[in-house]
């Protein structure tokens, strides 16, 4: 676990000492950090790797986000290293607050992503990447009491993304589709597996339009299993993201998380900031 931060410091050092400005992508095209720390949209990991590095450079980024819905809130902070736009390493910490019980659940996630082929902007094929998110729930009592089998789990996903330049009346259109193999209950915050464990492959998708160089609007969908038999719903959001420059982005979303731990109608807001080196 301690290896990740030291690796990141190493990258930071490499970025500064090599003085290679990792600014080799068009503004906004790498997207932001999703809640589990991988490069993506707000809730879906995308095929593109976090940050502006190209195959000649390294980039480091960090992000913090907060989701506030009716009875819960989720704070999440993450760091990412993009190595030559081939490999992304990420680490995220989540703090999930169950307001009615005055309870905090903590989870940490180590992620890695490898770009298999394609380029989001320049190739005719979509960019395709393979990713992994290894999750460890630190406060597992609630999860076990709800019927979860384990307090750690690993998600695997394959994602395809494409940006079509000038596709809709001259505006750039981005889509992403992700298939994820997972046993996570509420992304792992309520543990892994359970009595109703059957469907493990879940589909996720995002679609966005760039209104101008700095502003993107879009929608996201994330299918989720109902391992605990508590009526876990798919997640949806509608977002606007602002990229003033290649060092900052701010994302605001309206989220519908459906039912969480059998408490339904969990809708609310998501706000996230990301910094890129």
């Amino acid at each position, binding site marked *: 676990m301690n290896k990740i931060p030291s690796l990141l410091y190493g990258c930071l050092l490499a970025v500064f000492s090599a003085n290679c400005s990792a600014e080799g992508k068009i503004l906004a095209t790498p997207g932001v950090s999703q809640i589990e720390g991988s490069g993506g949209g707000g809730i879906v990991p995308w095929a593109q790797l976090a940050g502006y590095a190209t*195959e*000649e450079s390294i980039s480091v980024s960090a992000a913090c986000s907060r989701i506030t819905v009716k009875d819960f809130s989720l704070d999440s902070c993450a760091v990412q290293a993009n190595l030559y736009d081939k490999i992304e390493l990420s680490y995220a910490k989540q703090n999930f607050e169950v307001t009615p019980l005055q309870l905090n659940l903590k989870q940490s996630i180590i992620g890695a992503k490898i770009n298999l082929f394609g380029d989001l902007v320049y190739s005719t094929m979509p960019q395709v990447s393979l990713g992994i998110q290894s999750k460890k729930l630190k406060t597992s009592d609630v999860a076990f009491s709800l019927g979860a089998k384990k307090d750690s789990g690993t998600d695997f996903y394959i994602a395809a993304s494409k940006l079509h330049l*000038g*596709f809709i009346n*001259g*505006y750039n259109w981005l889509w992403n589709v992700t298939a994820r193999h997972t046993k996570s209950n509420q992304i792992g915050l309520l543990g892994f597996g359970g009595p109703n464990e059957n469907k493990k492959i879940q589909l996720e998708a995002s679609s966005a339009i760039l209104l*101008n160089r700095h502003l993107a609007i879009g*929608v996201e969908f994330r299918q989720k299993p109902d391992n605990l038999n508590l009526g876990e719903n798919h997640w949806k959001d*509608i977002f606007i993201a602002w990229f003033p420059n290649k060092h900052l982005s701010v994302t605001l979303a309206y989220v*519908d998380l459906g039912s969480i731990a059998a408490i339904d109608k969990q809708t609310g807001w998501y706000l996230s900031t990301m910094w890129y080196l």
Partner: protein
Amino acid sequence: MMKIEITSMKKSIILLLLMSCFSCSSPSSNIDNNVDSNSHAQTQASLYQEIGGKPALDNIIDNLINIIGQDDVVFAHFAQSNVTRFKDELTIFLCHLADGPCQYQGDSMEDIHQGMYITKNEFNHFVELFIEAMDASGISYPIQNQLLARLAPLRRTIIKM
């Protein structure tokens, strides 16, 4: 209540997407002057005309040359170039690419960039300089994107040659 709100929000976004799809497939209203009735493609304004024709292309390329002259990353690749020739050839190339009344018969992109070993960073940086040049010429964002869409596939014929 909130759920209803998000569904209607999503519906309006989807509607927006659909609308823009339809409007992009329908012929543009600015019909150009030299209409060729035989060809459907020419009954609507070409990208060349939407950019603003030769004066606009000349202006973009002038801006581009100025910007390259002040750029540390890519200037080295252009230091040996004949500026007049670069300007003339690029004008014809872009005119041709944007369906203008020109036929580019110059060297292929592969031949031009052979031995230059242009990296992805350098290429992408050049794209940004080109965007800067189009901005300085007052080319609108949607028109810029449409020209970039035609240039993007050329990357594989330009980098690491």
